[in-house]
């Protein structure tokens, strides 16, 4: 690999991927009128997960496969960490790029350990180092090495095979990871679990990930950025999930985003990111009359009864507080609460199921810190829409510093 001129391993194992640039990359197959991929330019920032999403036949897989030269571009330039991939030996290049695909593509005649250890052995690691690395990788993807190392792929479930596929892709610690619908063939529950695990892994590893899918929800969940591709891989919009949801570039993107864009946006926001409302509170052994006066006579106003450790106990209106001798009996019990780490979707769920349409937010020890109501949620959505609407009028739909220029 020394002659490959890629950054030396020690330079790039410290958690950070490298930047990938595509410049006017096209792919034409002989005898076909239209290009499969036409003049795509995009920059994939180091350490980010970029999801290429588009309908079947949009050329998203072709675009991805040109990065590791499984498909040779007809024209244009692709650089990884500043290195032009067309100047590198394709096999050596691919050993520096993790590759994970639908169906996992495990070698059925090799054990799990041999599958995961394949790239390290290709790049000439010692047996000892490879074995240790295999165990480390299996551990990383949540498979007990002692139990799974000697198994064969057919003895694994679909989800487990997919994990092994990811472990194999990561084994030689590549700075870049290409994933082609890796979770497309597993059941929805397993897919959710695998997506969560990929996000957790990525938070630790900081690889540059190019992820191909046709599932927009998956793109929203996993992507730091999403490139929505149309025919011939034309980039319709390249932006953060937030921005695409709030302000789709055109009708095609809007159609692809599908119904419920606002609801999807709620899954991207955490309760801690919004300004919490406050209600009147009283400790449980305070005088009910005082609480009644504090809540006041404003229509719909309610207060919260807390225990001695500030944990919410009961909701009460002024009238209910006035009708009881102890606040321990006032109103109705608090049944549900959300935490600052909950998504706004969770909060909305709590709001919708609450009689008064208010969700209590509690801290790590269960103490009251604020409330969220429907107005807060609506304000958030509104401000998001306004924010991205302004943005797109300013500069061709890109957000954030050094964001890539979408060719359209």
């Amino acid at each position, binding site marked *: 690999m020394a002659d490959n001129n890629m950054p030396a391993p020690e330079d790039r194992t410290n958690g950070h991927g490298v930047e990938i640039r595509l410049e006017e990359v096209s792919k034409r197959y002989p005898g076909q009128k239209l290009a499969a991929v036409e003049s795509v330019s995009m920059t994939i920032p180091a350490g980010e997960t970029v999801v290429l999403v588009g309908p079947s036949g949009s050329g998203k897989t072709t675009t991805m496969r040109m990065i590791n030269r499984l498909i040779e571009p007809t024209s244009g330039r692709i650089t990884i960490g500043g290195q032009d991939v067309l100047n590198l030996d394709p096999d050596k*290049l691919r050993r520096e790029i993790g590759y994970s695909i639908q169906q996992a*593509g495990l070698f059925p005649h090799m054990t799990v350990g041999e599958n995961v250890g394949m790239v390290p052995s290709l790049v000439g690691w010692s047996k000892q180092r490879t074995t240790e690395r295999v165990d480390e990788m299996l551990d990383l993807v949540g498979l007990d090495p002692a139990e799974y190392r000697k198994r064969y792929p*057919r003895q694994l479930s679909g989800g487990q095979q997919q994990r092994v596929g990811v472990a194999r892709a990561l084994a030689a610690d590549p700075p870049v990871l290409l994933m082609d619908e890796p979770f497309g063939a597993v059941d929805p529950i397993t897919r959710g679990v695998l997506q969560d695990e990929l996000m957790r892994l990525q938070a630790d590893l900081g690889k540059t990930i190019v992820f191909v899918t046709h599932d927009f929800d998956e793109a929203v969940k996993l992507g730091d950025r999403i490139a929505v591709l149309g025919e011939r891989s034309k980039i319709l919009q390249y932006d953060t999930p937030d921005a695409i949801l709030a302000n789709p570039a055109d009708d095609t993107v809007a159609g692809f985003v599908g119904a419920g864009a606002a609801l999807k946006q709620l899954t991207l926001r955490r309760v801690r990111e919004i300004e919490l409302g406050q209600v009147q509170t009283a400790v449980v052994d305070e005088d009910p009359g005082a609480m009644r006066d504090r809540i006041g006579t404003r229509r719909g106003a309610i207060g919260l009864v807390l225990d001695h450790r500030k944990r919410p106990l009961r909701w009460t209106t002024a009238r209910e507080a006035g009708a009881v001798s102890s606040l321990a009996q006032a109103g109705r019990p608090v049944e549900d609460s959300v935490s600052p780490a909950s998504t706004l979707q969770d909060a909305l769920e709590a709001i919708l199921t609450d009689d008064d349409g208010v969700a209590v937010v509690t801290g790590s020890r269960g103490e009251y810190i604020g409330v969220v109501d429907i107005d807060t949620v609506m304000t958030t959505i509104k401000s998001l829409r306004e924010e991205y609407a302004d943005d797109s009028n300013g500069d061709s739909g890109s957000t954030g510093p050094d964001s890539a220029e979408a060719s359209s």
Partner: protein
Amino acid sequence: MSFLDYVASRWQQLLVDSYQHASMVLQCIVLATIVGVLVGVAVYRSPAGAAVATALSSAVLTVPSFALFGLLIPVLGLGVAPSVVTLVLYALLPIIRNTIVGLSTVDQPVLDAARGIGMNRFRVLTRIELAMAWPGILAGMRVSTQMLMGIAAIAAYAKGPGLGNMIFSGLSGLGSANALNMALAGTLGVIILALLLDGVFVLLGRLTTSRGIRG
């Protein structure tokens, strides 16, 4: 002289012939495997090439073995040479066909992954495709071996080695003492050898096939 007495008195000769018979067949199988796998590798990616290779090798099988020996004698003379060429030709079809089938049934995602993680063409062929086609190739070798055991007996016609000599001299001297015993001993010897070698192939299959793809 009873058959058993005959065998007891000639067992040394029988052993030598059996050894030569088996040795010739196995060497021809090894040769045919090398040729067959090479041909299979050369043609499996092209449907037309695969069809031609299969058709040619099955055409060989339609030539009666007796005739093939006879046709080769003027060209290659008597003895080992025509025997080996004939046997190898007959052994090719099952091996070539199984090699092509084995190589072309490797799943596309597996090949894609192999290329994608940086295995070069040769590595993909040897470590993935041939490794996965191996049980099929071995099955082809096994079928060929059974076939050659019988055909090898006819090699005696071209003065080749093996049990065929006993059968031929027995049959040509029918009526004289021990002629029937001779032919019978040669024939039985071929059958017993065939069964033994078949067992060897089963064992070989068990030992060399990965548990991950064993049926």
